[in-house]
Each structure stands twice: as structure tokens, then as C-alpha cells.
């Protein structure tokens, strides 16, 4: 059965948009109708573009005139509300007084516009992209549960068919965690691969910009547009930008799959562990070999990322802190911004020293493997308002558990992707995380696609 327009991926829409058998206006209207129909329940958009249909009409005219710009031409994309946009307000999720952001395009928004995408609206972020939830957004797979965060608006909107792709940002897992709990694909490319110019900073050396998509092929299409050097982002690197879609459909026979048995497999919900072990077996069955290893140093990672993230975020918010604006922040964000003051200079630099050693440990691991596989999150979507979760029989704070497997790749800057790999017995999505060497997104996408094309998880839709 053909899926409705709003549920289809870029890879199936783009050829029809190119040939004119599908109108960008019809596609955009389908998403706008879907927003009108279900976003009252989801709350995933904070702003819907007043010009979305105009953008779609422009795309239609250009395509009809023979000026097809590429696979994103006429595709409705949701933009996380911490990316600056010239025609839509940016709030970064805050209502605190005397904080405003300019009306100009971030590098990512500008690249998407040049590719002909329709920027359909701004998706909700948790305030200043902090945290692992995105209030007031609900998860379309179970409205009583969180879509995780901080790109939870993008995850929820995409999963429910309110846009065809979305932008997220990822400081400790904020693209991959929402992707994992909403049955979508989330790609955090290598630090320096995608410009963060015009993305409201959270923690300068941890922040990544990137896409959430329905499929791995769609992630490759988005990365083709987003990747590239930008002098306006001091971390951006002038590395070659291949055509990432060429990574797709390549066999993985002979590739070496790494499985880091400590940290990533020490405590998971049983259904998560089962699904991920099955995914590893399924990939091995395609002719890849599995190599297990350990990185004992990961035991110190949580302290390191907290030291860096808290100190950086507090430095960014220092003026607001001194001006007495933080009491207007959401309570959890206020606490995190304020307690960053307790992190000392030596703590911060010790964390950066640790980071150098951790990067070296992963480099050694990549001497023997081509990718590293594991769960994206140890838990599936938790209930809204729940701060303690059961993880493998142990009661654990959401703050500690949720990002345990994603933050190592922010500390190391390695590319990582979350791909749907099943559902738990409550019908909630589970994500498989794949990481690769720096700037080796090709291998990352190759393995992710090899898994995705032999499973049907991506075709399941939430009943909303």
C-alpha cells in the first residue's frame, strides 16, 4: 500500500518532484494539513512558516522551467528553533526577558534554501538546547511519553509526518536520542563537518548541527547539502565532501564491526539489548566480522562531559546570570546554567585532557574495526514527568542514563548515526547507534543503509 505523501521519504519523493509528477505545493500542503490535524496533540512546532506555500510555488516554477536544484528541491524541512532564520523568529526555546536573536539565516538554513528546500517552520527545542526532554512536545508513538531532546520537536514532527526532514543539534546526543525514541534516523556528522554558524551556542566544543530523516538515504541527501567548509564556524574543517549517496547499496562484506562491551552494554533495558544484539547479528550475517573490545576510560566520561558542557553553557549565559534573568528560565535549565559556576577552571581543562586520551583510545580501537555498533539509548521513551527510570533492573536518573551512549561521540567528535532497529514490548522504538572514524561518514552511512534495507522498521508509522 502506498503511504500518504506526508509519510514518504525524500528518496521516493525527489524523483517525482524532479519529473513534475508530484507538485511541491501538494507535498507542502499535505504537511501543513498534517500539522493542522495533529500538532495540537504533539506541540512539535513553535512556529509554522507563513511563506511555506509561496516557497513551494517558487520551487514548482523553477522545476517546471527546467531548473531542478537537486533532491531537496521542494522538500518541506522543519528547522529546530535554535537555528537562525531570516523569515521566522528564533527563540531557542526561551521566554526569558531581554533575550532575542537576529532575523538572519544560519549557514544550514541558507544551504537548505539554496538547495530549494521549503523551510516549513521552526520545531521546538528544550530551552537553549539543554536536556534530554523537550517540553511541551509529546512522542507520537505514545502521547504520554517524551520525544527525548533537545531536538524533540524535530523528532516528533518528522515521525508524525509534519515535515519530510528536519534539522537538529547535538551536544550530548540531542539529534540521536530523539531519533532513537521516534523511529527516525538521526545523523551527527564529524565535529567540523557541518557549519554551526547561526546556531545558538550551547557548548562550543561539543555542539554539532545535523539532520533527522526518515531513512538513511535521506540523511545522505541532507548531508550532501549541509556538509562543507565555512569560515564563519571556527571549528569547521576544509575536508573533501563526497557524494554521500554513493555510500548506499554497497555491500558490507569484509567490513569489521566493533562492539565496545563495556559502558555500552553494561546496563540496558532488556528489550533494547535484545534488539541491538539482533541487529549486530543481522549485520554480521551480511558478511561482516564482529570484533569486541573495551574502552575502560569511558568510566570517567560523564564527569568530563558535565565539566565541559556546564562550564561552557554557563560562560555563554554569564551575562544573563549576572542580570538576574535565569529565574525566568525553565527550572531544570536554570539549575544547569547556575551550577556550571561550581565547575572550576582546572576541572574544565582536566576534562579537555581526558578528552584527548579518550580520542586516542578510540583511534586505537579503529585500528581493528571500521565502525562501532551499540544502542543509541539504554531506555525507550520514558513517561513525561518521570525523572527516574528502570534500566536493566536498576533505578537510575534519566539525566545520567539517557545520554550515556551518545555523549562519548560528542567528547570524541566522531560521526555517529541512530537507525531504527525495532520496538520494545510496549511498542516503543529502539535505536541502533553506529560510529565511525573522523570524516568517514561514507562508511557510517554504508553500514546504516545495509541494516536499514534488510529491515522494515522505517515503514512503521505511529498511530496518531
Amino acid at each position, binding site marked *: 500500500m502506498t503511504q500518504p505523501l506526508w509519510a514518504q521519504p525524500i528518496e521516493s519523493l525527489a524523483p517525482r518532484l524532479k519529473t513534475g509528477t508530484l507538485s511541491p505545493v501538494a507535498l507542502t500542503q499535505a504537511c501543513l494539513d498534517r500539522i493542522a490535524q495533529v500538532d495540537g496533540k504533539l506541540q512539535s512546532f513553535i512556529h509554522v512558516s507563513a511563506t511555506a506555500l509561496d516557497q513551494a510555488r517558487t520551487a514548482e516554477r523553477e522545476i517546471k522551467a527546467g531548473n531542478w536544484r537537486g533532491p531537496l528541491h521542494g522538500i518541506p524541512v522543519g528547522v529546530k528553533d535554535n537555528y537562525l532564520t531570516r523569515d521566522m523568529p528564533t527563540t531557542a526555546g526561551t521566554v526569558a526577558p531581554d533575550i532575542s536573536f537576529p532575523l538572519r539565516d544560519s549557514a544550514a538554513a541558507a544551504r537548505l534554501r539554496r538547495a530549494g528546500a521549503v523551510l516549513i517552520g521552526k520545531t521546538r527545542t528544550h530551552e537553549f538546547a539543554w536536556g534530554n526532554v523537550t517540553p511541551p512536545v509529546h512522542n507520537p508513538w505514545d502521547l504520554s511519553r517524551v520525544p527525548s531532546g533537545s531536538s524533540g520537536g524535530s523528532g516528533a514532527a518528522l515521525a508524525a509526518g509534519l515535515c519530510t526532514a528536519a534539522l537538529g543539534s547535538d551536544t550530548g546526543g540531542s539529534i540521536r536520542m530523539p531519533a532513537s525514541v521516534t523511529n527516525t534516523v538521526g545523523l551527527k556528522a564529524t565535529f567540523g563537518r557541518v557549519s554551526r*554558524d547561526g546556531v545558538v551556542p550551547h557548548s562550543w566544543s561539543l555542539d554539532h548541527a545535523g539532520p533527522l530523516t526518515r531513512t538513511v538515504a535521506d540523511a545522505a541527501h541532507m548531508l550532501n547539502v549541509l556538509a562543507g567548509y*565555512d*569560515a564563519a564556524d*571556527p571549528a569547521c574543517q576544509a575536508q573533501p565532501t563526497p557524494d554521500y549517496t554513493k555510500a548506499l547499496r554497497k555491500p558490507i562484506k569484509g567490513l569489521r564491526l566493533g562492539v565496545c562491551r563495556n559502558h555500552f552494554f553494561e546496563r540496558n533495558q532488556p528489550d533494547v539489548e535484545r534488539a541491538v544484539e539482533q541487529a549486530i547479528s543481522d549485520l554480521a550475517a551480511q558478511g561482516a566480522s564482529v570484533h569486541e573490545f573495551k574502552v575502560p576510560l569511558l568510566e*570517567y566520561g*560523564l*564527569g*568530563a562531559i558535565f565539566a565541559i558542557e556546564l562550564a561552557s553553557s554557563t560562560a555563554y549565559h554569564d551575562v544573563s546570570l549576572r542580570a538576574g534573568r535565569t529565574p525566568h528560565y525553565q527550572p531544570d535549565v536554570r539549575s544547569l546554567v547556575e551550577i556550571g559556576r*561550581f565547575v572550576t577552571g582546572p576541572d574544565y*581543562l582536566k576534562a579537555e585532557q581526558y578528552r584527548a586520551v579518550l580520542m586516542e583510545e578510540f583511534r586505537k580501537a579503529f585500528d581493528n574495526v571500521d565502525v562501532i555498533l551499540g544502542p543509541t539509548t539504554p531506555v525507550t521513551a520514558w513517561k513525561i514527568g518521570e525523572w527516574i527510570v528502570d534500566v536493566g533492573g536498576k533505578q537510575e536518573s534519566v539525566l545520567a542514563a539517557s545520554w550515556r551512549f551518545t555523549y562519548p561521540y560528542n567528547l570524541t567528535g566522531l560521526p555517529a548515526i541512530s537507525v531504527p532497529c525495532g520496538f520494545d514490548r510496549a511498542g516503543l522504538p529502539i535505536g541502533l547507534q553506529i560510529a565511525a572514524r573522523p570524516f568517514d561518514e561514507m562508511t557510517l552511512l554504508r553500514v546504516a543503509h545495509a541494516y536499514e534495507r534488510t529491515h522494515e522498521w522505517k515503514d512503521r508509522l505511529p498511530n496518531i
Partner: protein
Amino acid sequence: MRGISPPFLHVPATKSTSMSIPPDPYRDILGIDFTPERLEENLAAFDDIRREIEKLRRLDLTDVHPAIVFEPTAPYRKGGGK
């Protein structure tokens, strides 16, 4: 080394009386100016994180250069990929 000490290293004579009042470690040293109640709440919220940072402090990383590179040519980079 005479003549190069920056002014902030010289303690003005008028400050000498302040020596009788020890500086508040939170307010005067760390620049934290929360109410006592808010300070207590934040210290409680920081407790689990503090334990993790304490673990990190126990590592001997003396010979490791931090993962930070000072790059003096950054302001001179031109062009871009926007």
C-alpha cells in the same frame, strides 16, 4: 623581574583593612551570588555531577595536552562555504 608586574598583582594599601574580613568563597572567589536557599538547592542539584567530576580529578593526566588548540591564524581565514 622588575618593571613588568601587572597592576593587578599590587595590593593597594587601602585594601589592607579588608584582610580582616575573609572573602566569601562562593561570592568573592567563584563569583556566585545566589541566595542561601538557592545556593543550597544548586549544591544539591550538583551533588551527583560533583561525584563524577571528582572521579575525573583522580586521573593523572599531567603529560596530556588538552584537546584544545590555540589557532592564531583563525581571524585571518577568508572565504567560506555558506
